[in-house]
């Protein structure tokens, strides 16, 4: 591609494309077309947000973490404990507090952990998550421990829209609205100069230092923002399901979101959408029937992805499109 074309591409990359409306139209369509599956739909929306948060830190900044559920859980427990112990169950403000708590946790742990890299960093992210999980276990008086806190009640959103325990209509639209707002913010962020510099950090850390970028500050900031978003996802999860337990802080959830992001395609935002929908749909249908075969299938898929399709479904789609064009 020549310079004028490349410059045009770089100058317009951030512009909204028509097809970007599709996911949202589809989500709204699902609301009307699948009224009996909105509880499942809400799960998908929550996981999309969670996967988006991971995409910022992993797909864009290149920080490999197995402990991102720490922030999901932090947001989840913040909302739960505010509601159960402080009588603070207004959902929107609870969401804000959850984002703040998770974001601060991300800032602190990022500042401390991102001095390390490679296996040490990976292991420390695991440790941070396990630390929180065991702390929640230890202080079960506050957190409900292993059994968790069922029956959490939340006020209607904006005073008018009550949480719909039977059909999840309110929850679904609430989750969709939150996802939309967070997505807009994230999209702006990744297209900003800051976001581009994260890509540079991911592609070549040494080079980024050698162009004078304050690498660590950028990484920590990205980590903190990502943590806040994960916290929001966790908070919505609890508000929608009225329940929290230790699983929100567990390795299963952290591994799950990583798999979702990789399956869909990391470093491109929309991979989170594709991955979450595909994975959760498959899990919903297959895992209940054949749980062990499901795990085997996921394992084999991961091995194949790592060897042949590291850019996930969207990456494969890109490759196919490129090959089609070159015919």
């Amino acid at each position: 591609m020549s310079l004028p074309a490349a410059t045009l591409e770089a100058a317009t990359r951030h512009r909204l494309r028509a097809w970007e409306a599709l996911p949202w139209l589809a989500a709204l369509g699902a609301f009307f077309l699948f009224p009996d599956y909105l509880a499942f739909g809400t799960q998908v929306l929550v996981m999309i947000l969670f996967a988006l948060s991971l995409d910022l830190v992993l797909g864009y900044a290149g920080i490999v973490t197995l402990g991102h559920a720490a922030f999901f859980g932090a947001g989840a427990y913040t909302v739960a404990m505010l509601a159960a112990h402080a009588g603070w169950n207004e959902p929107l403000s609870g969401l804000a507090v959850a984002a703040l708590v998770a974001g601060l946790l991300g800032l602190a742990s990022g500042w401390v952990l991102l001095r390390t890299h490679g296996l040490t960093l990976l292991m420390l992210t695991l440790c941070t998550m396990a630390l929180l999980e065991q702390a929640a276990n230890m202080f079960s008086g506050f957190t409900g421990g292993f059994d968790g806190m069922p029956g959490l009640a939340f006020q209607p959103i904006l005073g008018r829209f009550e949480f719909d325990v039977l059909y999840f209509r309110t929850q679904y639209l609430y989750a969709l609205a939150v996802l939309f707002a967070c997505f807009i913010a994230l999209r702006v962020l990744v297209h900003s100069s800051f976001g581009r510099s994260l890509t540079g950090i991911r592609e070549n850390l040494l080079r980024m230092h050698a162009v004078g970028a304050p690498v660590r500050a950028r990484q920590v900031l990205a980590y903190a923002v990502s943590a806040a978003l994960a916290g929001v996802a966790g908070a919505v999860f609890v508000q929608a399901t009225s329940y929290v337990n230790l699983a929100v802080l567990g390795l299963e959830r952290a591994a799950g979101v990583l798999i979702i992001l990789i399956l869909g395609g990391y470093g491109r935002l929309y991979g989170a959408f594709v991955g979450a929908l595909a994975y959760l749909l498959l899990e919903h249908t297959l895992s209940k029937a054949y749980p062990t075969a499901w795990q085997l299938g996921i394992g084999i898929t991961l091995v194949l992805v790592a060897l042949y399709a590291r850019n996930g479904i969207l990456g494969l789609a890109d490759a196919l499109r490129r090959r089609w064009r070159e015919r």
Partner: protein
Amino acid sequence: MDLASILLGGLAAGMVLFVVSVGLSVTMGLMGFVNLAHGGFAMLGGYAVVLAMRHWGLPFGAALALGFVAVALVAALLERTLYARLYRASELDQVLFTIGLVFVMVAGVTLTVGPETQGVQLPPWLRGQTDLGFLKYRTYSLALIAFGVLLMAALWLGFERTRIGAQIRAAVDNRRMAESMGVNVRRLFTLTFALGSGLAAAGGGLGAEILGLDPQYPLRYLAYFLIVVAVGGLGRVSGVFFAALALGVLDFVLKVHFPKGGTMFIYALTIAFLLARPQGLFGKRA
């Protein structure tokens, strides 16, 4: 429980951690490959021991040897066919591959044997208690401690006195320089990976009574294996030894006194330790 019992119990658990993790430390130090599936080899070894004893009537020692060899062979095969393709890959790819591999191992074991915890029938000479004079303690645990010390000594001798050991140490310190001095690093990888995984298998079988043996084993102990390796310093056998013992004792103590969530202190300590000393106990500064 008195102090001595707690200490011995923790040491026994620590020894198992050592036997399982030492292979991971050396291969990580040597290859720089993030192998999250290492616990899976330990699990496979444990299951091999259990099945060999149950279906073929092998005695415990022979079953352990069989587990060691069988898993070492499987590991060597996997290394040649799959792992080797990802040596130059990104850390993320290595993480994905090894997580996938663990899932396959876990699912495979669940499908073939079942999800229940497996017990190992200890041979008569390991059962019961031994009188140490100042205290009577479980023979099995004492044997584990003794085995761990012997293994440490054997490994130390192996690394210090044999040519292969010297080659491994050189390659861990500086792979390119070792290669330029004529060390066949590829073959060293396979050998070390096989031996390390075989040791893990033996550890899985040996420690089945203490750490348990069920399909969730590799994921349940993943953090611990990684902690032991990172705290000990990559590729440092003595480091793994002391880190594993410390972790074993701490875990035991905490589980006794703070059964709910006590292990949070282990994670907190690990974080604090590695921040103060990122190269681990005996690792070299980057």
